[in-house]
């Protein structure tokens, strides 16, 4: 009925009284790069482990190509996986490691040699066949692990925070490699990470996990511009939240009272409860800042506490009434920057159409 390649349906996972995965439903298209993003303990790794067959769901079903995976043990699922820790077989050489899945499948020797060569070329490690894993850097080991996971052409590749042990520069380098390999092979990738930047850089779509369930699924742009929950808004990109009172609700929009008394209307409201207050999301780069010397009033008044030059951006820290501090980001060379200095009273304004409020 559905055209989904992988269907995850209402899966739950309990460990005694602890619920690791509450209720996850998700469709993944063939060839898609899907990332599970969330903090540790949000259920993203457990969900991946259920796909790998290391964990069995308490309830629900996982289907690949329309057939349930749950009756198949790990070693028969024909799924590739790269782990967070280094999992190359330390007693085997790089070539033997990559050949391992093929030898298990009793592939003829000549084919094994050809496939191993191809896989090592794919991860740009030609000529490393005879090296022992212990003599390679972490980045190289993870690339060999990637070659080993792809050498038998699995339809699905699972990656469980494969780059978390590497330093930032190397991580970005391998992220680029992973993108290239995804494009070259067309393999469907399920990628787990807690690093939003990594998720944004790699994925076609991102599923944001929080407390055992998915808060929102969408492209990085959608998650950033149209967050469905306060958690997603806070997890993706930099954000300021200010506490406001809900004055009135008109359909999916609301009129809010800001600290200092000003009212804004027409703010998109995401309701999670009938509360009288709402958290207003203001992205740092979407706030206009101006010296408060006459001219029209802004939505908020404040005082500059700190100015940090960061190269392409300058971060201005503004204290608003009630002691709350907001971060305002201004691109390099922008006219708004002229004349800003610490202790200067400023007026802040924003376009109500482009912000979001989360009613609690």
């Amino acid at each position, binding site marked *: 009925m559905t055209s989904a390649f992988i269907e995850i349906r209402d899966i739950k996972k309990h460990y005694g009284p602890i619920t690791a995965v509450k209720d996850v439903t998700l469709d993944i298209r063939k060839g898609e790069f899907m990332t599970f993003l969330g903090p540790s303990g949000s259920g993203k790794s457990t969900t991946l482990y259920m796909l*790998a*067959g*290391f964990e069995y769901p308490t309830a629900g079903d996982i289907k690949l190509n329309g057939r349930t995976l749950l009756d198949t*043990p*790990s*070693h*028969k*699922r*024909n*799924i*590739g*996986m790269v*782990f*967070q*820790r280094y*999992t*190359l*077989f*330390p*007693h085997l050489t790089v070539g033997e490691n990559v050949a*391992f*899945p093929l030898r*298990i*499948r009793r592939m003829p020797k000549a084919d094994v040699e050809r496939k191993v060569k191809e896989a090592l070329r794919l991860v740009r490690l030609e000529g490393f066949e005879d090296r022992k894993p*212990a003599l390679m850097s972490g980045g190289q080991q993870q690339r060999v*692990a990637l070659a*080993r*996971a792809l050498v*038998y052409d699995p339809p699905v590749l699972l990656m469980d925070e494969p780059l978390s042990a590497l330093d930032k520069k190397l991580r970005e380098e391998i992220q680029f490699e992973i993108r290239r390999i995804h494009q070259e092979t067309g393999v469907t990738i399920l990628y787990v990470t807690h690093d939003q930047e990594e998720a944004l850089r790699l994925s076609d779509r991102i599923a944001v996990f929080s407390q055992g369930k998915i808060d929102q699924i969408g492209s990085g742009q959608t998650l950033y511009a149209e967050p469905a929950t306060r958690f997603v808004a806070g997890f993706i990109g930099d954000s300021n939240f200010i506490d406001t009172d809900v004055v009135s609700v008109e359909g999916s929009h609301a009129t809010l009272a800001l600290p200092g008394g000003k009212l804004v209307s027409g703010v998109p409201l995401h309701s999670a409860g009938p509360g009288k207050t709402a958290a207003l999301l203001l992205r740092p780069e979407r706030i206009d800042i101006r010296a408060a010397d006459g001219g029209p009033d802004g939505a908020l008044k404040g005082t500059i506490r700190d100015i940090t030059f960061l190269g392409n951006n300058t971060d201005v820290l503004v204290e608003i009434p009630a002691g709350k501090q907001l971060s305002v980001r201004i691109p390099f060379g922008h006219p708004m920057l002229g004349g800003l200095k610490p202790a200067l009273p400023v007026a802040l304004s924003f376009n109500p159409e482009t912000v979001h409020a989360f009613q609690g």
Partner: protein
Amino acid sequence: MAMTATAAPGERVARRRNAAFAWTLPALVLILLFFVTPVLGLMLRSVTEPTLGLQNYAELIGTGTYARIFANTFLVAGVVTALSVVIGYPVAWALAVLPRPWGQLVFAIIILSMWTNLLARTYAWMVLLQRTGVINKTLIGLGVIDKPLALVNNLVGVTIGMTYIMLPFVILPLVGVIRAIDPAILRAGALCGANSWQCFTRILLPLSLPGVAAGALMVFVMALGYYVTPALLGGTANMMLAEMVAQFVQSLVNWGMGGAAAFVLLVVTLALYAAQLRFFGTRRIG
């Protein structure tokens, strides 16, 4: 000025090292006096008593009875080692992967058995294995056998008793080695398509081989020179090497032959140890 400044710390280190050496001196003297000297003395007696020459060694190798004792000893030590590894490996694996309370319980049982007096354990086996013992009675009662099996006063009894005593020496080093293997490596093996047996033979076993070798060597060497269990559970017809040495020294007061037999044992042990170092000594796991 600069010269003395750079020389002084070096001198101080050297002086401290000398002081440290002085502290080890009593221990070194002790080892020399009570370990090295007797071994050298025994070796000396083996080539000087009753006359100077290698006649004691020639007699050991040339006499059929003695050759059989050597063969018995190596056979029993080999079988005991093999059985200890075959039985001990799964136990070590279970200890490594069992959830904490259960693992600790099994561990406690093994340690307690090790702490129980050796003679008590050996006599217990004598009672269990004798013609009218629990094992024979049970087997007859179940109708498996008609007549009691000869389980004691022969090499079968020695092998059973010694395997029991040696098991912890295989299990304990293996637990550490198996625990050090990251379970994620075995999960990776499973996703690569390896079933449980293939994961065991191609990943777990090769990775734990240094532990197997260490345990096996320890057991083999201990078994070669073991005295109490062969003396109690073995028969007079099938002597082992340590019993022979004891007989030479105690009954026959033949220090030459006794020394020669003991020295042969020592050389074999050292050779095995060297071989183990050669093949597994430098290898590291993980």
